[in-house]
């Protein structure tokens, strides 16, 4: 529904293959690493083990190499960026000072963090409310409506991109942050699905007992469902935070015409890539591009360091049962 859905991220397009019995993320069932599982797949011969570990380490190096390269390049003077040395021959930490002076990186980071927080909180709360509606209450047309929720996951973002732009334009909100998170107030299909799965895993007796004690319907959600669903709430939050952080296209559509200070981090990098590109009149100061790229990657690495299991669980949930 939101513009963020136009990002071709697998997360948004689930629904079809996931079944009723999908293991609920975050409630402990999803991450069973039983020792039994470990034993069976292990290679039995010593040679097999050696080959396995060498391959694993090889791929780990392959995946890490661009990061190390990026870090090294960000610390090299202009002429040495392409020497591909992983330890700079000449250290140029002044690149970071130069970037600080030349680019409004702080302002980009602030914009991106603010938008990502708004987007993530909005979608996590609204999806949770809607999901509880689908999970707990019985009302006519519920199953059809829920099928409709799932069906919207299949919709390519391109189809709604233009009319959504016109809606925001009509509201006079082009150039503001609102189009980048506003639609999140109305929930988002995959997250509704995920939260609903979680709520379905809660014992209904809990809610019935609260009802008898005179708890309102909203109270059921606010005082019981919400506190219990913190793990799936975090999954939704970190996913949307990342999606928002990554969302280049929406920034291009809604913020590109504004001032450079108003850019988001991804839009800023796109701008930097052009600014320093020799074909666009720059001098090929790629070390600055690397500094900026590294800095906008750091928040994601930080969020991953603390929330790794939520990312992994969230992704794994998609394919479960399927």
């Amino acid at each position: 529904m939101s513009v963020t859905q136009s990002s071709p991220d697998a997360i948004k397009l689930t629904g079809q293959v996931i079944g009723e019995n999908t293991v609920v993320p975050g409630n402990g069932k999803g991450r069973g690493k039983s020792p039994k599982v470990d034993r069976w797949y292990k290679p039995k011969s010593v040679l097999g083990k050696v080959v396995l570990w060498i391959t694993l380490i090889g791929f780990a190096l392959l995946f890490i190499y661009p990061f190390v390269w990026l870090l090294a390049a960000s610390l090299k003077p202009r002429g040495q960026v392409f020497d591909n040395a992983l330890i700079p021959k000449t250290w140029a930490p002044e690149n970071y000072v130069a970037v600080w002076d030349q680019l409004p990186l702080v302002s980009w980071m602030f914009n991106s963090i603010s938008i990502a927080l708004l987007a993530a909180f909005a979608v996590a709360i609204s999806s949770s409310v809607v999901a509880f509606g689908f999970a707990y209450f019985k009302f006519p047309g519920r199953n059809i409506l829920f099928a409709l929720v799932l069906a919207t996951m299949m919709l390519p973002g391109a189809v709604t991109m233009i009319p959504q732009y016109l809606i925001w334009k009509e509201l006079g909100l082009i150039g503001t942050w609102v189009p980048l998170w506003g639609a999140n107030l109305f929930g988002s299909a995959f997250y509704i699905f995920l939260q609903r799965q979680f709520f379905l895993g809660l014992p209904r007796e809990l809610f019935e007992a609260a009802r008898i004690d005179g708890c309102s319907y909203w109270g059921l959600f606010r005082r019981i469902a919400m506190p219990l669903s913190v793990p799936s709430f975090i999954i939704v939050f970190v996913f949307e935070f990342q999606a928002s952080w990554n969302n280049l296209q929406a920034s291009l559509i809604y913020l590109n015409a504004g001032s450079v200070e108003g850019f988001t981090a991804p839009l800023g990098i796109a701008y930097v890539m052009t600014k320093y590109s020799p074909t666009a009149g720059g001098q090929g100061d790629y070390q600055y591009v690397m500094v900026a790229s590294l800095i906008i990657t750091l928040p994601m690495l930080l969020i991953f360091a603390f929330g790794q299991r939520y990312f992994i669980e969230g992704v794994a949930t998609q394919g479960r049962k399927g």
Partner: protein
Amino acid sequence: MTSVLGRTDGGRPDGDKTSPATQPRVRKRKYNRREAIAGYLFIAPWVIGFLVFTLGAMIYSLVISFSDYNLAANTATPVGFANYAQLFEDPKVGLALGNTLVYALMAVPLEIAFALFLAMLLARVGRGAGFFRTFYYLPKMTPTVATASVFLLLLNGNSGAINKGLSAIGIEGPQWLVDPAWVKPSIVLMTLWTVSGTMVIFLAALKNVPRDLYEVASLDGAGPVRQFFAITVPMISGAIFFNVIVLTIAAFQVFDQAYLLFWRDQSNASPESSLFYAVYLFQQAFRQFDFGFAAAMAWLLFMIIMLITFIQMKFGNRFVYYEGDDNR
């Protein structure tokens, strides 16, 4: 499609396990009025959002696709099928569609194969899996813009690290980002670097395969290759199917990498083979502001994605093994 959707929407809030007795399967359901109203109120945000940002937007988009939209005056003049006719007249639409199709055909099978390979490696390590998975997942956390800016340099034809590495083992690397023939492989390479999301889904599926199947098979003398095709592939066919569909839809909408590497500057210097459908659509909509034509392009994309997904589902349902479903 309906059959798959049917599987997923069975929403019984109490589930089978908790209270089978209180939920006799009767066709006529009695709804508690207050409860039903509360339910509608809870889902109201989504309903409103759906009516405005999805259904409303789709209808609006359909109207625009049959009009000449003037952004400055905010008027839509009906032009009948002119925008749709232009889809066939504009050679770039066909070009972009062809590029996207070729890209999808390259990217999806490679992503599936690579992700499955990595997942099978990780499934074999036991306790170290978590450690390696962290490293393998890091690229997925990197913002696409950062990935693109690094690969822009790594893929440099003359002095990039990838070609330096290739020449070290005696291979002369191509001009990745310049040679039209190597543009798509370059983007595929970037996509493969961030394949870990798919890998995690495969890993989860692999962990659910009952181990005794392999035991029995190896007692019967089946080698690793035979076991892979006779046990692993059928047992995780659901995950394969899911990933193929999701990755195909994503491949048809590939935008960020192509935009950043080739179409950022709005210069015409970039090879035509890098013009993907989503990029051309974006250009028509937000550079030319030809909303009518862009909306028609979007609907064509929608139809194509729907058609391909439908075919994949028809085909997929034949071989996908669903647990507990016999005689399928």
